[in-house]
């Protein structure tokens, strides 16, 4: 009997010791983790907008977060936007029904830092909508302005790839042509589908105008050598521009041995940009109509 008690006692003590060690480690590392993630995200976003690592970010550049929610009530659904306000700080909650007409607007007192955290933000939106409605987070977009004028949007999206999901971040200009694309996460085969991370695939999307994107297709042909060199950045700036102009209405050249991945990315990007274009037009109309003062 004594044996068992000793055993149990010693086991419990070791468990507690282990738990303490792990707990302490967790607390230390989770802060570092969040910080690193944030820094990495910022880097990716600036790179997409055209500012490579280490380049000077102009002080007139500002990023405005817009959060989109799906509000559900018993009989219908609507889309709720959290837009940053121009003057008083905080956000404005704009509820638009599925046909594009305004339902209501309400000021939401939430600071930018608070809005980055999921919980305070959801609580604020729930309070703005009132009881009896369900609130579901849809996505978040960043509107980029320079000197108050809109220069672009940063979108992120997730779609089905060849194996599992592919997560991308896109930068589009106000006319919805693509400024940049970055593949954030994927689980494709190395050497085959994983090549979607390579410059010579991603850069094919750069500069594609909205009209070309809406009808985009993937063609199974090898990339012409000179275009390939331009995509890989092996030629001068003006040459890259020239090739971009020449190929901007062309289809995307598929990756060797990864046609399905290439198609998935092309269709995924098309879906993200077309849906966003529709939504932002609806939102802009409402904002203009109602003369709402937002920061972009």
């Amino acid at each position, binding site marked *: 009997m004594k044996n068992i008690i000793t055993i149990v006692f010693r086991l419990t003590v070791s468990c507690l010791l282990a*738990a303490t060690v792990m707990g302490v480690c967790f607390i230390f590392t989770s802060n570092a983790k969040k910080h690193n993630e944030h820094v990495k995200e910022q880097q990716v976003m600036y790179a997409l907008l055209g500012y490579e690592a280490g380049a000077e970010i102009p002080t007139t550049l500002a990023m405005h977060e817009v959060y989109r929610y799906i509000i559900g009530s018993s009989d219908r659904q609507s889309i709720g936007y959290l837009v940053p306000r121009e003057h008083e700080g905080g956000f404005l909650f704009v509820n638009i029904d*599925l046909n594009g007409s305004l339902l209501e607007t309400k000021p939401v007192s939430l600071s930018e830092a608070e809005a980055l955290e999921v919980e305070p933000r959801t609580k604020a939106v729930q309070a703005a909508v009132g009881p009896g409605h369900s609130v579901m987070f849809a996505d978040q977009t960043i509107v980029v302005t320079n000197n108050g004028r809109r220069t672009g949007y940063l979108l992120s999206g997730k779609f*089905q790839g060849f*194996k599992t999901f592919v997560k991308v971040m896109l930068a589009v200009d106000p006319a919805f042509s693509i400024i940049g694309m970055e593949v954030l996460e994927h689980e494709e085969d190395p050497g085959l589908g994983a090549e979607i991370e390579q410059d010579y695939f991603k850069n094919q999307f750069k500069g594609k105008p909205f009209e070309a994107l809406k009808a985009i297709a993937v063609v199974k042909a090898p990339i012409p050598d000179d275009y390939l060199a331009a995509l890989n950045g092996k030629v001068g700036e003006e040459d890259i521009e020239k090739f971009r102009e020449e190929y901007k209405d062309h289809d995307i050249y598929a990756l060797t041995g990864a046609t399905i991945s290439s198609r998935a990315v092309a269709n995924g990007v098309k879906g993200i940009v077309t849906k966003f274009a*529709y939504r932002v037009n*609806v939102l802009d109309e409402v904002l203009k109509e109602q003369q709402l003062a937002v920061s972009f």
Partner: protein
Amino acid sequence: MTLAKTRYIVLASLFFLLAPIFARAEGLIAGQSFKGNNEIVVTFSGPVDRTAAEEIKNYTVYEEPDPDIRLVLKSATLAEDGKHLILHFVEPLNTAIPHAVTIKGLAGIEKTTFKVSKSYLGYLFGILISALLINNFVFTKYLGLCVFFGTSKKKDTAKGMGVVFTLVMVASALMSWFFYNFILIPFNLNFLQIVIFIGLVSLTVQAVDTVLRKVNPILFNSFGVYLVLVIANCVIIAVPLILANSNYNVFETFMLALGAGGGFLLALYLMSSVSERMQLANIPPTFKGLPIAFIVAGQFAMAFLGFSGLQLF
């Protein structure tokens, strides 16, 4: 637990899984599914008015997560018998996402709404097949090799190991799921994952050992000796880790565990069949034993690569 009892339990759980199919919603809509790339086929329980059904303005279709983006219909064609309707869309549909269809003013009902999605059971089986073949734990994910090479010498050993394995895998996966969803997440103790999971696995092995010893000593004599080897195996911990990563629910966890165990059994069986023949072959001395086993496994892995991208459901 006799074989008959086990069979009964398996059948009962299968029926339980299939039940939702039989409890379909009644009313106007008898069935709906995706067809091809850009079509939805709807079956009505009775013939409906042709003009109302073929008027595309009466239809609102959208993908469930995007209710504000309406999909554009090209045409709605009603079949001769008035019961089958084909909705043809301009753009190809993303069949992986459930779609919601609303029909206005059909058969006197103001609004009929229903969802179209790929069958859930199909999805579950998809996970099973994926864990079994496409993402076979031994040949595609390269886990469980340690024990793999040790027990794949004879067919009987292989079968025994595989069965015991599947059993422990399913039990520990289900227990891990409970722990993960009801204790780890609510209390934000995610970092204790590893410790808890391996604790559960050891517990399961111990439990299976004791139960088997008492309930069926004959079975224990043939399989019991492999139980100890189970703990030293990477796969047994991989299954709870995967389910924690992908946030599966109970059914999906069950399918994953079954598939993983089944895949392991398959891999062991294949290897042991080959290994029995290898013992009669003429192998150079440097390659005897493990090296040739590895090379054979490599060839199997190449063969299994052919399964990748398989999409049955």
